[in-house]
């Protein structure tokens, strides 16, 4: 230990993760009725929040946070392997649902239809395009930075969404997906496909939440979620280049004058 070659073997980090896993699994799953729906709380959400709390409370140091980053990639390998062996047996079903699986990728443009008007109403300028042209993961950040530069309004916009997604995406998707499925009666498989938005941790949290609400379909849910996420990962960038970004620009030029009429430019910072 101590020598450079073994710096990845951070026992403090792995020990903390082990303890977090034990403690959060011990707490278990809880369902909290909220209005007409149910919020599902489950171990991985506590684990993520506690991990963040430990870091902010200085119980883990920057050293551990640095070592944790490559560990996510490695630990996700296991999850992907598990998703793979779940997809195999469901393959005939997934192929049958192929058209839905492919077409729902266009549903990702819902970011623009819902997000752009809101961003403009809140007073954002060109930031709104970076924020809402896509779900703002790594490939989309790359595209915007490439197209407009890092220090452009669009660049600041996409970075804002990227940061929020990184910090709260998984927790938000986990809570929201479970709750929404208890108040809006779409089919669990439709929701499962929708969880594949191009982020492994968000898909994992959202599909797990659905699996808690519909335990009889849990293997299918994870298989469809995994297949959809793989598809989004493969097509997401092209979706942004050819449809998302042009559409966001078009909608911006149509909507912006209407919003500007009623209000002065308020917001400078993203």
């Amino acid at each position, binding site marked *: 230990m101590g020598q450079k*070659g073994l710096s990845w*073997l951070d026992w403090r980090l792995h020990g903390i*993760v*082990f303890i977090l896993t*034990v403690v959060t*699994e011990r707490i*278990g799953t809880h369902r909290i009725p909220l209005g007409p729906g149910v919020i599902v709380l489950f*171990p*991985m959400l506590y*684990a*993520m929040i506690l*991990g*963040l709390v*430990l870091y902010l409370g200085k119980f883990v140091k920057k050293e551990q946070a*640095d070592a*944790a*980053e490559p*560990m*996510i990639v*490695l630990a996700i*390998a*296991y*999850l*992907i392997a*598990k998703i793979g*062996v779940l997809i*195999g*047996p469901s*393959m005939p079903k997934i192929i049958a649902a192929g058209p*839905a*699986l492919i*077409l*729902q990728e266009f*549903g990702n443009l*819902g*970011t623009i*239809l819902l997000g752009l008007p809101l961003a403009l109403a*809140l007073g954002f300028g060109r930031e709104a395009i970076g*924020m809402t042209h896509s*779900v703002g993961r790594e490939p989309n950040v790359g595209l915007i930075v490439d197209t407009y530069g890092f220090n452009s309004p669009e660049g600041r916009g996409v970075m804002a*969404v990227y*940061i*929020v997604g*990184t*910090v709260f*995406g*998984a927790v938000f*998707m986990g809570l*929201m*997906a479970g709750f929404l499925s208890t108040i809006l009666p779409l*089919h669990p498989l*439709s929701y499962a496909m*929708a*969880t594949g*938005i191009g982020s492994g*941790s*968000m898909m994992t949290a959202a599909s*797990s939440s659905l699996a808690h609400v519909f335990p009889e379909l*849990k293997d299918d849910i994870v298989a469809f979620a995994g297949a959809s996420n793989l598809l989004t990962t493969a097509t997401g960038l092209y979706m942004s280049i050819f449809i998302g970004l042009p559409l966001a620009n078009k909608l911006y030029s149509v909507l912006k004058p209407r919003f500007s009429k009623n209000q002065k430019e308020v*917001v400078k910072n993203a």
Partner: protein
Amino acid sequence: MLNKVQEWAILLVIVGISATVGNFIGYKIPIADAIPGMLILGAISLAGMILAKVIPVKFPAVAYIGLIGMLLTIPESPVAKPIVAYTSKVQFMAMATPVLAYAGIAIGKSWTDFTRLGWKSVLVALVVLFGTYIGSAIVAEIVLRMQGII
């Protein structure tokens, strides 16, 4: 290369221990029952990472891993039955808990950036996540109904 493989294997075992114990505590699956499935999943992961390193085409390790797992368990695969049986003893959600624990610790570094954002940015970002989710769910629902699958 051998060093790298060894390092991956050790780290996979470390994550695997957390996942296996979590699988026992959260889902009451005895540790001994879960070990064969964990070893299979670990082997698939390792194989995928090695392939990504060895094959010169730029294709991420996770794609190989998913593909291997899938090919081993499609109905045509002769080993599908035992692999599905063993790996079913490992709950997806149990494996995800350590992943998000690592993620929680790692995202601490983004916290300062996060606190600099205004509430408006946060609100728009959450609506963006919600928008892609509900948009995809509605399209999927329509197409699945048209196909008569649901």
